[in-house]
């Protein structure tokens, strides 16, 4: 049997040198005349250990080494890496590392484990069991399974996926679409990217199940252009699925037809908003549409459309294969199932952590994440991307749950947590939120387009110390207008980071006890 090692092809692992490591291994094996298969897998999501190389030993054990640099390769091979021998960088079974062992990996169970673009590997690890069941129980029962699982939109809005599917299924038969929102633009998030790069077939299966369930025969993945690795992996997987009869007409030998395409965005953050995304897919400027009509009634090209986030759709194969109850059994309050939480920014142990809802922010940041990598105290975390609130340590007892965060004037969004140490200037962060909104606003509604520009100007005055109280009052009023008057979440949620920074860190705005740091 050919020996096999895994060197991640995940974009973050590659950014940390995985391609060079893979090449060093290939060269070293060739020089030694060893026949070793190098599999470029997804990442296990522990980025402080990347590039994390895993080996399947002659006894079938799988052990890891990391973080590996190209210059370590010769010594590792000579030290008995292929036999899984203990030595420098040895990590043993990586699934026993506490960060990994404590997770509940439903959606990410195959990511990092399998060869992402091998359909055989996908099938060998439980792939397409969900579609099999969907075909067996039929469309309406499939929709009910998704509803009963309690799955809510993982893109950020948290709207029940089953209700979207019911609405589209109830529309008169005819052309319908499944659209996957893979425009993961929020800083601090990379779960969609890791699924597309690490287990693309699961997303394809999820979309196919959606197609069967609502009577759609065509799907589009709209992936952001900043993710070339994800686009390439998805295209390879779609081609393999089509070749094997899992896409196309009469999929998997059933009576259903479904095919899909990968489309690439062009650097507009607002296209992560669902109606803007649909406009972009249709070939226009990504201007947000007023709702109603809902995309479920009049979506892509005016047809009934299911539009779901990558993680929502990728959660469906598990729900169908294991049953709605298995998914709904874990969670917290009305947030059922698991959430892939992404620990990012200034954090010691950054990565992807999939866990049932209910874990507290403090556990995530301090215990699992190990605090900051600079070693300085954590001062603030931004949860939910550029439109999410900044939380101080005083709110670290907040459980990760849609409603609990809403109660504290925050949102969990797509599950990204960006950690900042005590060197952060929160007034600058508030200014950045306004600036980002002004750069990325689609321009359709006035509160967002003009409000964000005025917001930057007002923040500049506040930072410069010009009539501070007067300008803070204007900022609060402006935020209120943007929140209530904007057409979509870009203008509507930009006040979250701004107002939370002001509420929780008033000293950085010249209010309260501490003077504004002089620069």
């Amino acid at each position, binding site marked *: 049997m050919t020996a096999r090692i895994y060197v991640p*092809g995940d974009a*973050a692992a590659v950014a*940390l040198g995985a391609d060079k490591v*893979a090449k060093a291994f290939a060269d070293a094996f060739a020089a030694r005349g060893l026949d070793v298969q190098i599999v*470029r897998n997804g990442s296990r999501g522990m980025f402080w250990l990347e590039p994390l190389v895993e080996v399947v030993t002659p006894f079938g054990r799988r052990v890891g080494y990391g973080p590996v640099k190209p210059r370590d390769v010769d010594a590792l091979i000579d030290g008995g890496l292929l036999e899984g021998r203990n030595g420098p960088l040895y990590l043993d079974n990586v699934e026993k590392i506490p960060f990994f062992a404590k997770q509940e990996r439903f959606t990410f169970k195959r990511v990092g484990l399998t060869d992402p673009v091998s359909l055989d590997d996908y099938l060998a690890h439980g792939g397409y069991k969900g579609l099999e069941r969907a075909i067996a129980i039929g469309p309406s029962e499939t929709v009910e399974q998704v509803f009963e699982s309690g799955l809510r939109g993982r893109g950020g809005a948290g709207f029940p996926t089953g209700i979207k599917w019911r609405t589209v299924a109830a529309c008169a038969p005819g052309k319908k679409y499944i659209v996957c929102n893979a425009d993961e633009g929020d*800083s601090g*998030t990379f779960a969609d990217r890791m699924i597309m790069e690490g287990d693309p077939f699961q997303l394809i299966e999820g979309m196919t199940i959606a197609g069967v369930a609502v009577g759609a025969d065509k799907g589009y993945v709209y992936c952001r252009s900043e993710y070339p690795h994800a686009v390439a992996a998805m295209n390879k997987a779609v081609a393999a699925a089509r070749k094997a009869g899992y896409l196309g007409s009469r999929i998997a030998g059933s009576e259903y037809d479904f095919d899909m395409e990968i489309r690439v965005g*062009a650097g507009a953050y607002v296209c992560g908003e669902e109606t803007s995304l649909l406009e972009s897919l249709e070939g*226009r400027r990504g201007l947000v549409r007023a709702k109603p009509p809902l995309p479920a009634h009049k979506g892509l090209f005016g047809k009934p459309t299911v539009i779901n986030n990558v993680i929502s759709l990728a959660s469906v194969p598990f729900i169908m294969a294991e049953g709605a109850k298995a998914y709904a059994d874990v969670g917290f309050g009305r947030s059922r199932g698991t959430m892939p939480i992404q620990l990012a920014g200034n954090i010691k142990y950054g990565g992807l952590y999939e866990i049932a809802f209910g874990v507290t922010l403090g556990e995530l940041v301090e215990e699992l994440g190990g605090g900051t990598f600079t070693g300085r105290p954590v001062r603030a975390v931004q949860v939910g991307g550029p439109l999410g609130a900044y939380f101080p340590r005083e709110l670290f007892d907040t459980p990760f749950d849609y409603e609990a965060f809403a109660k504290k004037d925050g949102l969990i969004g797509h599950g990204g947590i960006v950690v900042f140490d005590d060197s952060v200037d929160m007034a600058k962060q508030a200014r950045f939120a306004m600036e980002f909104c002004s750069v990325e606003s689609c321009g359709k509604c006035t509160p967002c387009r003009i409000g964000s520009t005025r917001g930057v100007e007002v923040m500049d005055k506040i930072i410069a110390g010009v009539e501070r109280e007067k300008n803070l009052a204007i900022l609060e009023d402006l935020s209120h207008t943007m929140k209530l008057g904007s057409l979509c979440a870009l203008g509507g949620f930009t006040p979250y980071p701004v107002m939370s920074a002001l509420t929780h860190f008033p000293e950085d705005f010249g209010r309260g006890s501490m003077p504004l740091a002089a620069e």
Partner: protein
Amino acid sequence: MTTGHIVSGSRHAHEAWSPTRGREIIADHLPLEGATLPILHALQETFGYVPQDAIPLIADAMNLSRAEVHGTFTFYHDFRHEPAGKHVVKICVAEACQAAGGHVTSAKVGEALDCAYGETRADGQVTLEPIYCLGLCACAPAAMVNGRLIGRLDDEAIDEIAAEVRS
């Protein structure tokens, strides 16, 4: 033997604009639903930018007004109106990278390359651009240099980028 998911970040040479080649590319993509973005991407992939002369060709082929195509073209940050420099350096400036010291790093890159953000240096060697998130937020600050990803951008990596840009 290497299997699995591999993407190389190498750059290829761009062709000079030719209307004939432009029409071919447009025709290739016309059967797609909502073909405008795929066409613009393909033109930029081939020519390195979307030449102004291509806009009326797209409009004719798709039975759209020039204004509509121009509107789409100008809405998106990705589409270039003129060729980029020989090297393209994108530095992430979003929150996760800021939290990891990105303000200092991005300023250092600008100094090392002697280039302002959003501009191409006068000698045409480099285009430096800010980018809002590469999805490398657990190994920030991050950059993309000629399509190649770099995480945990430090002084050594900046020196390497500067050396690459000199080549």
